[in-house]
């Protein structure tokens, strides 16, 4: 924990050495998580996502069997040895679902971050400079928003073959316009605020204005959107996987659903358990987003500036 701010340390704020920044950020992160855990929906969301993240990280130790190895009779229903049953080849479904957490969460977060990066660049540029830049960039965003993800995925996979990063790229292509529009809207409205005018009048460079004046104030809804983007990415990836477009070398819930298609009536557990996992992940992320939203828009009685960042 860093020491509490003193007038001198805060006044030197413009020039914190790198180590100082790291310490300051971790202190802020701690406070932020605590605040999030205090909200009504944030706490269950945090619990679910943390649990899933732990499962993903500890998969090799948690999974009872090697997920790719045929271990028992095929298509066997739940039993003590196989709580989720086995799939059509005889692999343990529980281990498959556990390992599937890795790919699905990874795709979810990587895609959300990629969308944030691209959408952020576009949104900030269009929102700050407006004019022709805005016209071109926002039309571009709208164009991408109308692209049907599945067709694009089909093309991409047909051309390059399915892989983790290709999937991330494809889904990010579908999602980035959402972030771009949100960030654009935030920048457009914040740019008109008087403290930005004051910064311009004080001759502060535009890099400072974008990064240190506008962006911190724009963050709360953006962070909420990132959580929602992640849940959307998981859903899209599952859909693509269901259609067989997932990376065959990677175990993901969508892919498990793909294999389960032919056995919907005979081995229902093959589709239900992965499906359940997808639901839990999406619900968890949405709860997290709700919790973040509560932090971002505090009740009027509390005179706080919103997200404790």
């Amino acid at each position: 924990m860093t020491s509490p701010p003193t007038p001198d340390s805060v006044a030197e704020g413009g020039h914190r050495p790198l180590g100082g920044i790291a310490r300051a950020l971790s202190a802020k992160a701690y406070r932020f998580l605590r605040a999030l855990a205090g909200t009504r929906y944030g706490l269950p969301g945090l619990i679910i996502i943390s649990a899933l993240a732990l499962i993903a990280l500890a998969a090799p130790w948690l999974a009872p069997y090697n997920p790719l190895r045929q271990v028992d009779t095929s298509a066997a229903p739940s039993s003590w040895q196989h709580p989720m049953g086995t799939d059509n080849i005889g692999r343990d479904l529980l281990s498959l679902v556990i390992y599937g957490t890795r790919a699905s969460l990874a795709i979810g977060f990587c895609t959300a971050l990629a969308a944030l990066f691209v959408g952020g660049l576009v949104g900030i540029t269009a929102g700050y400079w407006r004019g022709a830049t805005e016209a071109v960039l926002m039309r571009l965003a709208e164009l991408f928003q109308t692209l049907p993800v599945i067709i694009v995925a089909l093309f991409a996979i047909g051309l390059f073959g399915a892989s983790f990063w290709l999937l991330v790229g494809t889904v990010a292509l579908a999602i980035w316009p959402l972030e771009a529009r949100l960030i654009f809207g935030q920048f457009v409205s914040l740019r008109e605020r008087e403290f930005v005018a004051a910064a311009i009048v004080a001759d502060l460079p535009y890099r400072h204005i974008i990064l240190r004046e506008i962006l911190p104030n724009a963050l709360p809804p953006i962070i909420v959107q990132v959580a929602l983007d992640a849940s959307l990415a998981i859903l899209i990836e599952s859909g693509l996987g269901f259609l067989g477009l997932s990376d065959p070398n990677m175990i993901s819930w969508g892919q498990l659903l793909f294999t389960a298609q032919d056995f919907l009536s005979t081995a229902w557990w093959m589709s239900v358990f992965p499906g359940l996992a997808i639901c839990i992940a999406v619900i968890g992320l949405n709860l997290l987003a709700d919790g973040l939203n509560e932090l971002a828009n505090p009740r009027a009685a509390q005179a706080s500036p919103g997200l404790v960042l």
Partner: protein
Amino acid sequence: MTGRGAAKAAPLLDVRGLKVHFSVGNTVVRAVDGVDIRVERGECVGIVGESGSGKSTLMRAVTGLLPNVAVTELSGEILFKGSDLRTLSGRDMRRMRGEDGFSMVFQDPLGYLNPTMRIGRQVAEALPPNLSRAEAKRRMYELLREAGLPDPEFVAKRYPHELSGGMRQRVAIAIALSASPALLVADEPTTALDATVQLQVLDTLKKLYRERRMALIIITHDLGLVAELCDRVYVMCRGRVVETADTVTLFDAPTNAYTARLIALSRRDGRAAGTEALA
């Protein structure tokens, strides 16, 4: 008319010992801390104070419109025509906002006029429901005219954002009048308006007060407004009433130092003399 002249007639509004406390973070804000207010029928009373004095909270407590925050204490009596408003059910409270009841006008009408509905319809909506369409339309034009709008037909067809601030405020007054209230509470009615438009709304309020013999409560920080309009004044500071008197006495001989300071500040450098008539 009851009230004026009658020696011991019950006041229209009688607030006794009202306290409204909020919890903000880990402190308690005593927005209103033991306030007594009395308004007779047909009187115009001003409640004056700076920000944080509690004047708006006081009126919101009376009209049942407290903001959705943690209220730690709400005690005292709010007697309107004899009944304690705090103990009334939702239905009875609605009746209190109807015929011969009370009505409110707020500072910024753009915030509470429906932006997607034409003015005429919004005013008509506020009328009692048992009127025929023709009758409602007639009353609606009448109300708009009474509120000081010279061209009601024009205004009725407009949407709120097409009107200026002064016109919107008068529409708000028309809506407030639709139920023929005995008491009209106006919270900073002219603060957001231009000076020349302020005069128009002030003129409307004066006429209404005279012609309808309606009780008026004006909540404001502007002593000039109070001097123009009100019979009696309550001065509030930090949740308490620090002085009350009829207007002339208050301005001539304030007994409280805070009041004296407010009056001196509002006059800035000396009293404003009357201006010459426009040649």
